[in-house]
């Protein structure tokens, strides 16, 4: 039994808290520093994490301790909690003005993209539509993708040590490869929507594999663990097959390869 749980069950929450910090302080700090190494941010988020864990007389920890069987390792659960609180702190709490300050130095279009994608959690297509309809910035979708990529790079730099945080808030970057497609050969946002419909038509396990591997960019081994597949090769096979089916569906909808 974890020492902090023993103290909690002995009716000594203060001792439980001390023991928890003694054992997991390094892990909590490491998880926070994954997102930011700015000393002020680290200490502020650490304070927020401790405040949240101590709230309601260690309510979160009590709920964990009260379960007879656990599905996850405590350390994984703890970093899950820390991640949630860190992202929340930056997006909704005291860290939000710091993100806004980081965006202030960007060119106008990139600043709006930053606000939509990183601060408001909009998808890339939603951000594109908002730029056109709300801000009157009429960009071809390909040019938007260029601006989006530039925003990711600029934001990671502008936020100093918070590059991972920017990716966390904005999701996966546009695909980069050794010979990227000519973005100006027009990939319209509507086609992305059709493709999303094609994704929804896949078998559930294929869809999840595509979502985690292609969209969330998880390594195949981790996708296999999360989706309950036997190994990374099973992930590759499902994703490849799924993309082939999606292309076929798109072609049936009248969108040929050249259109993409």
């Amino acid at each position: 039994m974890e020492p902090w749980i023993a103290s909690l069950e002995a009716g000594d929450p203060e001792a439980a808290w001390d023991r928890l910090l003694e054992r997991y302080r390094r892990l909590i700090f490491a998880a926070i520093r994954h997102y930011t190494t700015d000393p002020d941010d680290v200490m502020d988020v650490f304070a927020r994490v401790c405040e949240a864990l101590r709230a309601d007389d260690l309510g979160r920890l009590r709920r964990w301790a009260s379960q007879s069987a656990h599905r996850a390792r405590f350390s994984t659960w703890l970093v899950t909690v820390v991640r949630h609180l860190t992202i929340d702190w930056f997006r909704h709490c005291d860290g939000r003005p710091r993100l806004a300050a980081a965006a202030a130095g960007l060119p106008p279009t990139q600043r709006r993209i930053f606000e939509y994608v990183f601060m408001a959690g909009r998808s890339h297509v939603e951000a594109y539509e908002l730029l056109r309809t709300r801000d009157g910035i009429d960009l071809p979708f390909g040019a938007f993708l260029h601006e989006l990529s530039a925003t990711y790079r600029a934001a990671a730099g502008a936020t100093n040590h918070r590059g991972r945080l920017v990716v966390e808030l904005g999701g996966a970057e546009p695909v980069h490869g050794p010979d990227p497609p000519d973005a100006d050969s027009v990939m319209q946002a509507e086609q992305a929507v059709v493709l999303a419909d094609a994704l929804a038509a896949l078998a559930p396990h294929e869809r999840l594999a595509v979502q985690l591997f292609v969209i969330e960019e998880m390594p195949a081994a981790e996708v296999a663990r999360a989706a309950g597949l036997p190994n990374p090769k099973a992930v590759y096979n499902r994703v490849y097959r799924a993309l082939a089916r999606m292309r076929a569906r798109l072609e049936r909808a009248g969108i040929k390869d050249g259109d993409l």
Partner: protein
Amino acid sequence: MTCPAPENLLLHALGVPGPRAHRAVADHVATCSACRAEVARLREAAVLLRAGAARSGDATPDCLDEEAIAASVDGVLEGDARAVATTHLFSCARCRSAVASVARLARDPAVAAASETDRASARWGLRRPGLGVAVAAAAAVVLLLAWPGVIDRRSEPHRGPPGGGNGVPRPISPVGPVAGARALQWSAVPGADRYRVTLFDGQGRVLWETQSGDTTAALPDSATPSPRLPYFWKVAARVGVERWVGSELTEFTVVGVGSPP
């Protein structure tokens, strides 16, 4: 000329280092029009998929709790719990993003190392000498920053940024390990007409607070630091109407004459 396996074309298209030599795939694709077209189609599909991907929505009652997300990352869900989680992940971008995010976090070398150390400690019941002081220090900082009851921030409505510049008071002594501490001393701030100093114990409790027009304050007997325990103090300078600029929190420990720092 043998074309690469589809999985290798997929990895190449997405720019993911694969299990086979990436360079060989790239070289092949450069000379094979069929594979080049296939890679282009895969990559374009990925671009559009990511562009159209929902990022996050509001949490719903069906959303995975933190333990289910952690268990998905650990790959330890079984039976009904697995089915419920997987079914939810199909349709919830918020939870998928959380699973991917925690997986990235768990893969961070520093996090993995700390997690391993924690597990080793748990297995063998290790206790590191001197850790208690560090923990107390961390707890103190947490308390100082987190609980308004410990530091009433309402009394500092226009608190300026901390730092060591001319406009901010800088703790001079005691700082770090010291032979003794009978007074607190700090640097003057131009234009400041008053200073407020606060002393905290290792648990973040306020032991003593006073205000002074000088840059030093003698500690009363009731706040005499005990040897080998961590203490913290800070000083704020009043530079305008209800405008205070504060120092960083400073730690010190009385180690006694002749004791190692």
